[in-house]
């Protein structure tokens, strides 16, 4: 099958082509899963949310009007599911602990090609501090920061996902960066200015 666009896959899935929807899942599941991991800080929950996102999306395919990109629509569903999961929790997660999936990449066993273990450890400490800083942000700022700065969505795409004006997204990102920079400075990490 030639590489189809997301819209074409959605159109085929609407016509009952499950394989087309499966292809859409394979294409966007890593991003959805990463978003869920950053939001939930739990791999099992993130995988559940990622799977649930596509199931809900397939269920609501008929209501997708095509005015936005399918992946932003998927992102919206994933964010909503993640927030629902967070709000349904009985206990708060501890930031940057050993089970934090955001720091899995810094496990020595998961990065056999790491040239310098000590450098990797320092980097892990830095990201651990980042995790603490991000978790200290409000739900709104944290979600917006993850979408824009971690997942790389543009302000326009983030505004479509979150249903907020672009100016609001820009303000949230700016505010999240400022607070995160201050937090990192308090931890002894001097981070440079933001990139636009």
């Amino acid at each position, binding site marked *: 099958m030639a590489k189809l666009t997301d819209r074409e896959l959605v159109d085929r899935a609407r016509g009952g082509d499950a394989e087309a929807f499966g292809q859409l899942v394979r294409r966007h599941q890593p991003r959805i899963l990463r978003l869920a991991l*950053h939001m939930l800080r739990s791999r099992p929950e993130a995988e559940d949310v990622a799977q649930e996102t596509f199931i809900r999306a397939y269920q609501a395919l008929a209501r997708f009007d095509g005015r936005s990109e399918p992946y932003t629509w998927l992102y919206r569903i994933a964010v909503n599911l993640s927030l629902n999961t967070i709000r349904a929790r009985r206990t708060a997660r501890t930031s940057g602990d050993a089970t934090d*999936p955001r720091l899995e*990449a810094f496990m020595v066993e*998961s990065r056999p090609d790491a040239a310098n273990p000590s450098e990797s450890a320092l980097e892990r400490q830095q990201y651990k501090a980042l995790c603490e800083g991000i978790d200290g942000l409000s739900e709104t700022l944290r979600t917006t920061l993850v979408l824009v700065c971690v997942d790389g969505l543009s302000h326009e795409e983030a*505004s479509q996902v979150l249903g907020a004006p672009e100016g609001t997204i*820009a*303000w949230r990102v700016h505010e999240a960066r400022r607070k995160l920079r201050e937090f990192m400075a308090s931890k002894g990490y001097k981070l440079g200015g933001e990139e636009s």
Partner: protein
Amino acid sequence: MTKLDDLLSKWPMAERSQLEADEAAERVVAAIEGGQIPASIDEELLGAPLPKTAEEGETSAPPSLKPGRAGPVIAGVENKMSKDRTRDRTSFQELAKMATTPPPPTASQAPPPPSASVSGSGPAAVVRGKEADSSDSGIVDLKMIASADPSGEQRAQTTPLAASGLFEDEQPAKSAPAPASAPAATSAPPPAAKAVAQAAPVASAKKAVEEKKGGGGVLVVLGALVAAGAIAAGVFFYMKSRHAHDTAVATTTVAAPDKADTAKSAAPGTTATAAASVADLDTPDDLPAVDPNGKPVAHVGGRRHHHKVAAPDETAAPSATVDPKLVANIPTGGAGGGNGDLNAEMKAAAGGGTGLGGSGGQAAQGPTFAPGTVPQRPSQGQVTGAIGLVTPGARACLGSDEPVSHATITFQSDGTVKSVSVTGFAAGKPQEACIKTALSKAHVDPFAEATYPATISIRPNN
């Protein structure tokens, strides 16, 4: 220096094998194909995830592709609402346009049939266009009316006013042109409705005038009531102020005169009579007011007021506002001075004046005596002054802890003391003779009457 955005955008994540990704996708597809999909769609999952916080301002317009609060599915509803809002705005614009647009020109339009334009006999004399049936803006187009009835202007000139002849005091109807409202009232054109249309405005105008007249009567009554209320209020306040004024005059303090000079301080020309008693200098409260008949006047303005012997400066001031009744009792210039000359009166009261019986004015009801003759009786001031001179000697007769005694001094016509009677504590005691001796030294100017008694209280010196 590491940049924050670099750290965030290059966040390392554990690699997921392709196999794991395929397995996850297979699970989703299997769930879909297996029918493991919830029957109902959770609308919240399709809506905007995060509410706007309070600190967030509306810094830009919403994205053009904004799916809306409920996502793409709900977007249709939002679009519909947006269209409605647009239509509302358009509607308001149309309303504004309608409001500013003048009525359509009707000169070229044929006048409406009379049966349609005139209904009944009331104010329907104004011709209304056809468009009034559906959308009556309420604007009366006089031009349209004039064009519909060319002869209306002429008829208006000759038609008498509807209100003419309604009032008897009116002048006969002049041949002056009708007011501006006449053309509208007489513009019913068609012959069939002409009579009705001409009669209608007269009747309606007459009725209106009658109503106006009735309303005017009501207004007159109301005005009269208001005026009566105002008058009553004015009278009330006038009486109140006058009462206060009387009280002020009556309670004008007449300060106690000091020793011998106190004789000057009595009300000038007060016509004390034989029954008038002169109070003790230390007890000026006992000094009664007297009327021309010699009876004490204890009531001023219907109330009893205390009179105090006043210093001359104080007594002069309120004289300008004194009650006319009180003024009438005071013989102006009775001591021989000029009319109302207080200084002369005081001088005379102190015994220095010789103008008794002078050409001074007379009180309205006071004693009269011819010029150049002695007065009927000594003046109050003179008596007071004379007694004041001898009172210290009488008071010296009493011990400091002895009670008050009273003495009646009877002057005879030559001004000397005829007798002194003592009552009270000193009566029958050795002090009685002492008091009599002291008071017998008093002396006033001669007067016409045989005797003149004066009663005083004698208190011991402190």
